[in-house]
């Protein structure tokens, strides 16, 4: 899978009316960079630099890639592994998220994936683990059992870390920093729906980002609901949750967001939450933290005065 991914590393440049669009695949998602400029050389340069950065981050933190730093850390659980500054900063950030969520968000919860398999859609091949399986997996989860400092990280035996919950958003922010260094033209970076812009488009126009309306469900009142377009002048937008990844048992739908404390999926959470924030990683974490609140997801964001759209 990894080899195939790397073989897929092509960059496509398309000319639009007043912009160039650079599309590529990364982190198992279709990605796109739009620069509002007719300078083809600039577009190519941006494409090369941004894809290099995104693919670098993917290669470093993809837990499915045996050569990634993440896999090395996981495979050597029980012994210290040397880390660089970037990884240290990501771990510090993950620690903040753990504290802020009272332990609900935990990048060491990857071990739970052994118990849970979310293929979604067809309820037939649903795998629903027993409590014993969940408990077994849960014994290998716990942020507090991970020791790290600026030089090294040590996982307790059997543990795994997974940067998947923050990696894509981090890559968006990194890509944007590099883009800003290269050009002051309006640029949008979109990695599979998590996106950020350098600022408003030319003539102070906003970027129009389409979001599925969260409440397009009513049969009769649909006329009263317009398709929603978010006008983004600056900042970032990230979505957490995935409509396709869930399992159904006894008529109850379980989303793929797991409670790191119980090892079970969060009940009554929205299907997805989209948040707007200055940086993409903030938006992504806020969306995920909200999902972890289950039925209180919307309340959580409202109380924090955060602009969001929830889809239930």
């Amino acid at each position, binding site marked *: 899978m990894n080899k195939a991914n790397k073989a897929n590393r092509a960059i496509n440049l398309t000319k639009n009316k007043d912009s160039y669009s650079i599309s590529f695949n990364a982190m198992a998602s279709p990605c796109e960079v739009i620069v509002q400029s007719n300078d083809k050389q600039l577009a190519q340069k941006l494409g090369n630099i941004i894809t290099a950065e995104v693919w670098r981050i993917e290669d470093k933190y993809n837990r499915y890639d045996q050569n990634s730093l993440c896999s090395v850390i996981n495979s050597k659980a029980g012994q210290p592994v040397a880390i660089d500054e970037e990884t240290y900063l990501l771990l510090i950030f993950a620690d903040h998220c753990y504290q802020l969520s009272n332990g609900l968000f935990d990048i060491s919860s990857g071990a739970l994936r052994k118990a849970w398999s979310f293929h979604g859609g067809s309820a037939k091949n649903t795998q629903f683990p027993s409590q014993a399986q969940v408990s077994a997996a849960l014994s290998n989860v716990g942020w507090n059992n991970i020791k790290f400092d600026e030089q090294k990280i040590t996982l307790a035996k059997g543990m795994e870390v997974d940067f998947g919950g923050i990696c894509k958003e981090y890559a968006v922010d990194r890509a944007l920093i590099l883009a800003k260094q290269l050009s002051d033209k309006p640029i949008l970076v979109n990695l599979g729906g998590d996106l950020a812009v350098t600022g408003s488009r030319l003539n102070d126009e906003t970027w129009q980002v389409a979001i599925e309306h969260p409440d*397009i*469900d009513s049969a009769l009142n649909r*006329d009263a609901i317009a398709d929603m377009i978010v006008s983004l002048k600056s900042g970032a937008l990230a979505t957490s949750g995935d409509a396709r990844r869930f399992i159904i048992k006894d008529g109850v*739908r379980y989303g793929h967001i797991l409670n790191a404390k119980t090892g079970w999926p969060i009940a009554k959470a929205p299907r997805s939450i989209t948040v707007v924030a200055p940086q993409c990683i903030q938006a992504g974490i806020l969306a995920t933290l909200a999902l972890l609140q289950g039925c209180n997801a919307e309340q959580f964001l409202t109380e924090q005065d955060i602009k969001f759209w929830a889809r239930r």
Partner: protein
Amino acid sequence: MMYKKLQLTLIIPILISTTGCASLGVEPWERDLLAKKEMSLNAAPIDAALDDHVYFSKEASSGGKGFGGGGCGCN
């Protein structure tokens, strides 16, 4: 004549009671098709308004889908 009316008015409660059955309906995440514009009951309101006006002025029946109403001297 009267028999026919009675028969037809009875259809509504029967249909409602059968459609009230628990097996009907979809979960929110199964609304991909229903969410499309062409699956709304009044997908083309402008066409409907123009048609209503034509048929209201040419035929003895009006309304049913929405209000039949008066509203113009064309009838």
